[in-house]
């Protein structure tokens, strides 16, 4: 059996990144976690360009996408992914502080697969992250034929 495909985490806040990584490490997730600090980096990774031009082919198991990010925000990244036939099958989980209805509505309208509000409370937060990791990293069967992750044009 090959190694599980990586999880792409697009999150600009270093503290959130640290907390998420800590939780994932604690639960011994087999998936590699790739961290992108803004929307541009996340798209670079998905299209294997820029600093990610040398990475192995293949789409990530899941994209955890923060809404508010510098340069290109989460909704824009989501729009790009869901508009690209090659990237469209990747499950995208919005991971955000916002409980605002319009964010929810817009995210689902653009094709998000899940929407998770980061809880303030430590245990809920950790449990949510753990569940996310386990479900999308392991339990969920990703779409087949995900080798074609390259920039086949938009």
């Amino acid at each position, binding site marked *: 059996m090959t190694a599980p495909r990586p999880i792409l985490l697009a999150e600009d806040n270093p503290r959130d990144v640290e907390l998420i990584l800590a939780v994932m490490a604690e639960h011994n997730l087999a998936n590699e976690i790739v961290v992108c600090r803004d929307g541009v980096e996340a798209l670079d990774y998905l299209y294997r360009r820029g600093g990610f031009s040398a990475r192995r082919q293949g789409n990530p198991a899941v994209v955890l996408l923060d809404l508010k990010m510098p340069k290109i925000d989460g909704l824009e990244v989501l729009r790009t992914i869901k508009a690209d036939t090659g990237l469209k099958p990747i499950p995208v989980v919005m991971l955000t502080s916002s409980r605002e209805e319009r964010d929810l509505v817009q995210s689902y309208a653009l094709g998000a697969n899940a929407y998770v509000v*980061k809880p*303030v*409370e430590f245990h809920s937060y950790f449990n949510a992250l753990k569940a996310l990791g386990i479900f999308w990293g392991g339990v969920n069967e990703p779409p087949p034929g995900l080798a074609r992750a390259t920039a086949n044009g938009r």
Partner: protein
Amino acid sequence: MHWSIENRMVAGFGLVLAFVLVIGVVSYSNTKKLIANSLADAHSHGALQALEGTLSTAENAELGQRRYLITGEESYLSPYHTAVSRLPEQLRYLREMTAGNAAQQRRLDSLERLLTRSLEASKEAIVLRRDQGFEGVRHLIFARKVKQEIDEIRFLIEEMVNEESKALTRRAEESQASTRNTILLLAIGTLLQSVLLGSVYYLIRHDITQRKRVAEELRHRGEQLEAANKELEAFSYSVSHDLRAPLRHIDGYVGLLEKAAAPSLDEKSRRYLTMISESAKQMGQLIDDLLVFSRMGRAELRDTPVRLDQLVKEVQHELRHDTQGRNIAWTIGPLPRVYGDPAMLRLVLINLISNAVKFTRTRPLATIQIGVKSGRPGETVIFVRDNGVGFDMRYVEKLFGVFQRLHRAEEFDGTGIGLANVRRIIHRHGGRTWAEGAVDGGATFYFSLPTGTEQA
């Protein structure tokens, strides 16, 4: 006294109308008089002509008759015959033309008598001349009597002519004066009307300018308000995103620290960590509540039928974790169907019922009543009553304020925003909220909804 623009306009236009009426009435009566005068003038001219005609007819007849008496030549009698046939007609015409003038009519009576007498005398003389010849009438020819008669007729006719001429002059003066007055009245009236209409125009224009200014100001304020609303929305959006993150980090790192260092920490240090974590959670709750409160003020209201009895059942179910293991006697009366926003009205009931559940916690048997009460006309009043710890009526107005709490945090939990939300939601529905209670004597919370929307 300050008059409104409408009253001033009505007064202005009323005055103008009154002037127009007065001028109309006076002009009408003057014109009528002028027409009457001109008719009377026509009569006078007719009378003058007829008088002249009558005089010459009479004189010619007398002259012709005298010539006949002297010469016996029948042809001289033709003026006499003319007079006999025409005088009655002329007199009748004169009578018509001087109708309404008693003095002239009296003179006309005398004139008629004189003329009749004169014609009769002439007739007699003519007959005498035919029968007896010149000698028979000789004494008549030179008699003064005939001359006197004709002079009398002339004199009478002259008097009548004078009278008519005087009447003509008098009427001409009268007409002139009346015309002058009419012109004067028209001039003054036009001037006054112009002034009045000018004032009314000025008033209306002033009013329109003012209204335009007010409308402009309102529009401007509306824009400002909209901008402020947008800003508020952006603000609460930013709060929702950015204020939560540090709190999450505090609690997250405290959690990590606890996991990493708990075994080596003493009891006191562990308690400190718990306090930090709880404070962060509490602030998170406050932020969430505030966001809900702010959303309640901005969100659009839906207006659909809401079955309150159904809603209460749902809320009871939702609160089952809080009521578990409690001894609560529910009395829920028949509840009406109202019109409003179901999600918001649900929040109202959740707040009121969860409060009732919360504040009866110290009672071995809690009683909670929900029902309808009669209110003012046009409104439906719903109440939620409990036998809980109640409150001091002195602080009743504080109950519905944001973050106002009447109990210490360790007695009863809560952020103090629930009733503020209730009031805001009910106000937005056009209703009222109020409460009654006594310390340790339970509390009753009321809210009203306009029944006007019930038929919507």
